[in-house]
């Protein structure tokens, strides 16, 4: 097992390196320079800035020096924010995003699995239809519509929650809901479809024939087998939710990380682009690794990555 984990860790490093390399050259390949604005700055000033940030060196030189700094976990300065380094930005904003993401994920998984299961068990009933209408709405109503609606109804009209910003638990409820609804809908749909499939399997019939209680049939045999696709999408979903979402942060004025994925590209803030990408990748690859481990735990027949040994 240790050997397995070490190998995956090595793989993680290699994957990250590939991502860093591709992103590095990709971002320099697109037009636009970090310091351009509507009014053009004098050439000398621009040269000073390029020199200050080491952009006057050749690309391979910049690449190597970036990698060297990276091994010391130094992600560099931000060109845009003169006061925060990339490390500062992640340290300040990731905890916020992560907290919100975990709450959203909890909502999504709990409601999604419950809705999907109920819908499947009550196939073609009113409950099933209700659950699926919720799912359809959840996916087809984008966050830019849902989030202001939540604010207008629950904060402005009902006054249950603060309108926006960050601080207490109450501040997190609406944004976590807005974030979680879409994921919930996706999970509910996948769960329902797979539950239906599993419920039609012979072993379920066998289990029932053995006289197992309904609870045991559903809990031990059906959900366990039907949850596979949900686990699969949990990998990327977790990574996306934990590292923040631009729209929800913007609407609820949350000091999260999501805005930096967009802002950094818009500003051509190279170190921030790289830093956030590396951070996101690390979370993603780790989450996907955990998903693979979960496969084996849920269905012991599945062996990931060990067949070659």
């Amino acid at each position, binding site marked *: 097992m240790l050997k397995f984990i070490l190998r995956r860790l090595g793989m993680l490093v290699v994957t990250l390196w590939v991502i860093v390399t591709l992103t590095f050259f990709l971002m320099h390949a697109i037009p636009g320079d970090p310091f351009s604005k509507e009014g053009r700055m004098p050439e000398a000033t621009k040269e000073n800035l390029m020199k200050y940030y080491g952009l006057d060196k050749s690309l391979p030189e910049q690449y190597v020096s970036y990698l060297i700094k990276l091994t010391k976990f130094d992600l560099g300065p931000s060109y845009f924010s003169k006061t925060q380094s990339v490390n500062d930005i992640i340290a300040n904003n990731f905890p916020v995003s992560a907290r919100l993401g975990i709450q959203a994920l909890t909502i999504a998984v709990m409601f999604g699995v419950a809705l999907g299961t109920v819908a499947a068990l009550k196939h073609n009933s009113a409950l099933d239809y209700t659950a699926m209408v919720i799912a359809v709405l959840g996916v087809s109503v984008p966050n830019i519509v849902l989030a*202001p609606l939540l604010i207008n109804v629950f904060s402005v009209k009902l006054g249950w929650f603060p309108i926006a910003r960050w601080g207490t638990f109450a501040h997190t409820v609406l944004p976590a809901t807005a974030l979680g609804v879409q994921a919930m809908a996706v999970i509910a749909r996948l769960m329902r479809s797979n539950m239906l499939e599993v419920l039609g399997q012979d072993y379920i019939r066998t289990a029932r024939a053995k006289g197992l209680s309904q609870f045991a049939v559903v809990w031990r045999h059906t959900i366990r087998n039907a949850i*596979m696709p949900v686990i699969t999408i949990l990998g*990327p979903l977790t990574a996306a939710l934990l590292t923040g979402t631009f729209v929800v942060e913007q609407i609820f004025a949350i000091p999260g990380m999501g805005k930096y994925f967009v802002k950094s590209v818009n500003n051509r803030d190279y170190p921030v682009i790289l830093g956030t990408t590396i951070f996101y990748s690390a979370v*993603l690859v780790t989450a996907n690794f955990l998903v693979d481990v979960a496969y084996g735990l849920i269905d012991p027949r599945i062996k990931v990555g060990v067949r070659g040994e």
Partner: protein
Amino acid sequence: MNRMPEITKEMFRRIEVDKSEAEVIARPSINFWQDAWRRLKMNNLAMFGLGLIIFLVVMALFGPYLVPYTYDFQVLEDQNQGISAAHWFGTDDLGRDIFVRIWNGGRVSLLIGLMAALSDLIIGVIYGGLSGYRGGKIDQLMMRIVDVLYALPYLLVVILMMVVMETRGIITIIMALAATGWVGMARLVRGQILQLKEMEFVLAARTLGASTKRLLFKHLIPNSMGPIIVNMTLTVPSAIFAEAFLSFIGLGVQAPLASWGTMVNEGVAVMLSGYWWRLFFPAVMISLTMFAFNVFGDGLRDALDPKLRK
């Protein structure tokens, strides 16, 4: 409830054997697709979904000719008018008819949604299927490639595509969506295959000497159809919204043409002003599309399910 009902003699009836009927085939021989279609037809909800899809497509094609305006015809004085006999869906902030813009936009959005779903199906399913089936080192390598594609900043990729491809049209948008859109599907299918390939019927088929191709396409993928179809139906609305995002970056359809996604974006911006029709109609169109594809997808899943085939 479990009590055995009493069996009486009256319950039985003698059947006369008509020898002439012996040669008649009771059920016409039908192939897989005919069978699926037959079962699909029996599913009212699914047929409703299909009807809705056809309706939306037909309206997208012919709807714009039902009113005497074009999508870019503007009368500034008539801006932000509500529903009326002259403008069935109201007008937007430049005084353009929303009805004609909705159906014009439907052409863009529906095509993009369908093409994205298709690319999901073709690239994602095959890639994920191979990865899961091969397993081991190849699986690990293929999945790490997926991770890399997933982690690359999408904005960068899109801006690069925008610059590289001089001509901008629907093909470019579809390519930008297809570039990384399939990776979610690939992961999903791979997860399913990992689970399925350890099952007895696969072992049986393999023992009988079935080829990889046959195993994948006749056994593993058909048995993963549930999540595949569900995921495809989810791809349609997300592609519609992704297009709205692309036009925000400058790669989507160029104004004055609009898609449902861009119309929703514009509608959200005026939510405060109370011009509800500007958000309502495009949003309803996307939800209807979503609903139609979902119920149709569910029906299709049931109809194609090899286990349910009788």
